């Protein structure tokens, strides 16, 4: 008997340990996920710049002589900036003689450097004809090298950067011509094929417009449906059918809503593809059941005594709802809506179905502009072959998680501030 007791106690201890281990495993997976994404992604917020002394003589830029100040803005976009930039690099490293070495040297600079010089001239036309020292974006391989992503022990043929290029980078660093700055471009520019120029602003604007459309559709419809089902619906077959439908829709996979959006909004209604309007409508269909269920819970939480007191003072049923029940249920409804919008922000599959897979460079301004959304941008970058896009994708994920944390914190703060205990 005593032996059996020992065995049973041992089994008890093992079971308890198994439970703790299970929770530990789950939390460890979450930690591994977050830490690995942060490890890869935090470096996306810093980028590398090279300081070059560029000779901005009009002849070097290919501009005609004697250009007046009024004609300058029109002429700037057509000027040749790569020439002066290449000359500036070759002045620093005169040992680059043959064609291949000179090409490797100019590959150290990003393609976007030309635009930066153009923008500097547009802001300050007095720079024309002078020799200026500018900090210009470096190519993504240089950036990777500075962040330690290029293994120098590997033979040259298997590396993306040649020995010469690595030598030049070291020389630039020794001369103080290489620096690491906060990567504002990551947050303020649109997408690009070049990793060092790729930014999230287009995706952020697209997500914002899409969520606005979604909210404008789902909030009134969802609350109206919740109010009807809680306050006015008679018990019967029709109401049961509606409730069953809502519960089923809440469990339908999101890609099926994408198929619905494709079939109805794009094919039948011929709305423009890949726009926030269609994306917002599809996400609204997907979020509607969640909002209805959250709204019903919030309305149910208002005690019947409030309703009866209002009726007792002569209010009609609709007045009871609009003047008393809804204002009291509003914090709960808003909390549920914010959480629903957070879920909609992270949804990718329905947006893929309605065409948001294209490479969109311009930042969308109207609801009918072609746009992409933040999770779709993450999906597209994850497919890109350049190694630097791994860092960008992780950085974009950090931005997305940041927004989600913000929205959930807002929902929790709202609930804590306005929740009433009846």
């Amino acid at each position, binding site marked *: 008997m005593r032996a059996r007791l020992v065995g*049973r106690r041992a*089994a*008890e201890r*093992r*079971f*308890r340990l198994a*439970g703790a281990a*299970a*929770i530990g495993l*789950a*939390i460890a*997976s*979450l930690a591994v*996920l977050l830490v690995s994404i942060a490890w890869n992604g935090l470096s996306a917020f810093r980028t590398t710049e090279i300081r070059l002394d560029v000779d901005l003589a009009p002849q070097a830029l290919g501009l005609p002589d004697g250009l007046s100040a009024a004609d300058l803005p029109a002429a700037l976009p057509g000027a040749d900036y790569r020439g002066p930039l290449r000359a500036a690099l070759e002045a620093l490293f005169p040992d680059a003689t043959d064609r291949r070495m000179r090409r490797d040297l100019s590959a150290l600079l990003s393609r976007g450097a030309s635009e930066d010089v153009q923008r500097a001239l547009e802001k300050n036309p007095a720079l024309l004809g002078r020799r200026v020292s500018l900090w210009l974006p470096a190519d993504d391989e240089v950036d990777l090298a500075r962040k330690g992503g290029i293994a120098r022990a590997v033979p040259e043929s298997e590396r993306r950067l040649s020995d010469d290029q690595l030598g030049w980078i070291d020389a630039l660093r020794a001369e103080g011509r290489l620096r690491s700055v906060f990567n504002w471009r990551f947050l303020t520019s649109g997408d690009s094929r070049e990793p060092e120029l790729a930014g999230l602003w287009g995706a952020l604007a697209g997500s914002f417009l899409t969520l606005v459309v979604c909210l404008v559709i789902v909030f*009134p*419809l*969802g609350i*109206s*449906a919740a109010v*009807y*089902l809680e306050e*006015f619906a008679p018990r019967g077959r029709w109401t049961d*059918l*509606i409730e069953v*439908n809502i519960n*089923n*829709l809440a*469990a*339908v*996979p*999101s*890609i*099926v*809503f994408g*198929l*619905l959006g*494709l*079939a*109805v909004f794009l094919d039948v209604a*011929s709305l423009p593809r890949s726009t926030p309007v269609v994306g917002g409508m599809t996400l609204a269909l997907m979020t*509607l*059941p969640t909002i*209805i269920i959250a709204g019903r819970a919030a309305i149910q939480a208002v005690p019947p005594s409030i309703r009866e007191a209002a009726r007792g003072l002569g209010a*009609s*049923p*609709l007045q009871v709802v609009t003047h008393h029940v809804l204002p009291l249920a509003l914090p709960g409804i808003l909390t549920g809506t914010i959480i629903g919008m*957070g879920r909609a922000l*992270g949804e*990718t*599959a329905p947006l*893929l*179905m309605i065409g948001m897979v294209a490479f969109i460079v311009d930042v969308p301004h109207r609801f009918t502009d072609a746009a992409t959304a933040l*999770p779709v941008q*993450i*999906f597209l970058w*994850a497919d890109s072959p350049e190694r630097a896009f791994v860092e960008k*994708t992780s950085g974009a994920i950090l931005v*997305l*998680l940041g927004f*989600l944390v913000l929205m959930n914190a807002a929902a929790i703060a709202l609930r804590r501030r306005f929740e009433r205990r009846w």
Partner: protein
Amino acid sequence: MTSLLFLLIATLALAGFALGRRRVLASARGGIGERVARPHSLPGYYGWYVALWSGLPGLAVALAWLAFSSPTLDRLTLFGVMGDAPRRGSAEQALFMNDVRNVAYGRAESSDAAVLAAARRFVALRERGVVATTAAALVASLVGAALALRRVAPDFAARVAIEGVVRRALMGSSALAVLVTAGIVFSLIFETARFFAKISPVAFLFGLEWSPQTAIRADQVGSSGAFGAVPIFAGTLMITVIAMLVAVPIGLLSAIHMTFYASPRFRNVAKPALEMLAGVPTVVYGFFAALMVAPVIRSAGEAMGLSVASESALAAGLVMGVMIIPFISSLADDAISAVPLSLRDGSYGLGATRSETIRHVIVPAALPGIAGGVLLAVSRAIGETMIVVMAAGLAANLTANPLEAVTTVTVQIVALLTGDQEFDSAKTLSAFALGLVLFAATLLLNVVALRIVQRYREKYD
């Protein structure tokens, strides 16, 4: 133009509101400042009555224009240039109309005489349509306002009328849920029917080879066009099984430990952490699986001498399992908490340890709820898209080896619809057929889960 029209209708409605309100106040006054009759409702309600009667008809006209103008204009334009325009073949017609629209709106230029003629006609028709719609909207609003104003009198129950309208609007928005379901079912069935007209249902549901290449040209090589979906179903099943093997033990044990063994402090940390697992977007999980889990599994497998695909089912299944853990944990928690305390206390009273109580009393009592939760989790795993799109393979592979690459239903739907095939081909229609199967499967699982919970749940007390 449309925004101007809406602004006009809104202004008319506002004017109607003011008029209605003033009217009822005036008729309630009657003579020299003395009350003749007390209005039934507050004056604002009469204002709203007139506003609704003038705004809604105008709005209906404007919305009809928005909804039907595009196809109607297209059809009328084509009707007018019948001789020159390409006729049969909806794709050619759609392209032609696209060109016409681009020219008409000044977005592009064309040298095709037919396109230019059609564009001129389009612009003329559109202008006439705009004028007609604006006039119709104005007339509708004015007539509505006039009719409503006539009804305004102190004994008219405006509030009741308004509340009737509002109540019907509320009912309409809840009927929308049914409409959405009907829309999903109808659109999926419609496209699937077009698919089954080209490929037989039996070949689709029971065929063993999935290679959906349809010929774009008649002489194209490699257009086998086999649409047997069994490998896809098998791939979905395998990844789901792997995910469940991860999620069910961890989720169940977590729920049990948190209910019976954990201290409140531990629970305050562990519960939010598990909820965070549920809040991470699936595209993040997919990236994590593709970039970090799959290479680790690959190198581990190769160290052991096994050949592991870079997009193995194991990687996708493991990460999907992690994603589902909070789902199972919270549903199991609900089921376990529903078991009354008396059973627990009775078992303790008979001398059982906590683990024996859990294993022999609590879990069997909560089993229907747990089983329902597992079925719901399976339904979620089947419908999951982003993790498998990023971490699982694209080629249909009928195998039982988790180290090989398989494809799932959702991956195929995404691949078929984000490619560049013409919309009518069997290849893109097969995506809708797969979608219908997915919808039916998840619906069935949800219904069965609900039925199990309802039927087998013990009614205590």
